[in-house]
């Protein structure tokens, strides 16, 4: 491609946006700024609200069993919230120095996402019975025998069937998300190979 051909294509490429598209772009930009500000506050607010609910619950019926279930639950939620925030931060601070570093940090992020997904798959079956026990202990006053009986009764109700169905659907979504992340990792690895090939050609030349 000679210089005049290139200039002609560059001029064609750089054709002005029409005013409607320009206005839409500016609206997009303003919406992005609002979203950016909102994200900064929302995550902390959610974490604090969840912990406040469980702290309040623990003090209303402060039996040993309630506290024994409530405290690990609080720790679990705090840890999960913190972890999610750290992962999102990682996405924001993707290495900007060069493409190899960018692809590496994207891969790192995708793999961290896959780990988060695994944590989700493992923690749902553990956290849900704990949350149920916590709720029942609040209602019954906290004895292990009463809680166990109440859980047995609950398991025979339509509500239990609905909960299990919802958990199964949630598990299904998690598995689908897992496939998507694996696909992303595969594409990133292919892209890394593409950049390596370009670099090899450049060093040969």
């Amino acid at each position, binding site marked *: *491609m000679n210089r005049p051909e290139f200039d002609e294509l560059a001029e064609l490429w750089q*054709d002005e*946006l029409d005013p409607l598209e320009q206005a839409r*772009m*500016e609206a*997009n*930009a303003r919406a992005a*700024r609002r979203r950016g500000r909102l994200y900064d506050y929302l995550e902390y607010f959610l974490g604090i609200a969840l912990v406040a609910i469980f702290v309040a619950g623990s003090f209303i019926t402060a039996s040993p069993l309630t506290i024994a279930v409530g405290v690990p639950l609080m720790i679990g939620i705090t840890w999960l919230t913190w972890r999610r925030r750290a992962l999102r931060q990682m996405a924001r601070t993707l290495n900007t120095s060069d493409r190899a570093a*960018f692809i590496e940090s994207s891969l790192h992020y995708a793999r961290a996402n896959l780990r988060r997904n695994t944590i989700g798959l493992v923690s749902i079956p553990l956290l849900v019975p704990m949350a149920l026990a916590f709720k029942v202990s609040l209602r019954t006053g906290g004895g292990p025998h009463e809680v166990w009986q109440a859980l047995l009764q609950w398991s025979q109700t339509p509500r239990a069937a609905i909960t299990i169905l919802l958990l199964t659907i949630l598990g299904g979504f998690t598995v689908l998300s897992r496939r998507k992340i694996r696909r992303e990792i595969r594409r990133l690895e292919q892209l890394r190979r593409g950049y390596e090939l370009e670099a090899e050609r*450049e060093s040969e030349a």
Partner: protein
Amino acid sequence: MAANGSKDELFGQVISSCTGLISRIALSYEADPALRHELIQDIMLAIWLALKNYRGEASLKTFAASIAQKRCISHVTKRAREPRQVELPVDLVSALPPPDEIVLRNDQKKRLVESIQLLPIPQREAIVLAFEGFSYVEISEILGITPNAAMLRCQRAKTTLKSIMEQRS
């Protein structure tokens, strides 16, 4: 924070001077208009989030282009399925009723955009930056390679683009 002003002021400058650039970079990666709209929103959000790290070492245009390219690469690797070939609108250049010359120009632009979308990503980002008027030094800063490597990559991208366009004509 950059020496040139607050985050809000800098973002205002991005809106006023880089929207065309961002829109065209997104176009080189996403043919589907609805998905492209989402991609542009993501790019804008990423620029907003990244502005706190902008120190003014490079121009704001270079900074915005660099983030836009990276967001586009993430978009391509994250999408649910391989893209189908979406027919680009015939009025890609202008919304006005097209006389013959505009029809021809629109057709040429459509062919150019479709050919760029078929380039391998490393070459695609180099040629798009060259079309946007960035020098080899600026391209090398954005891509994190040497100016010489940027020049070689642009040359290879031009050759590949020309052959794709010839095949499609």
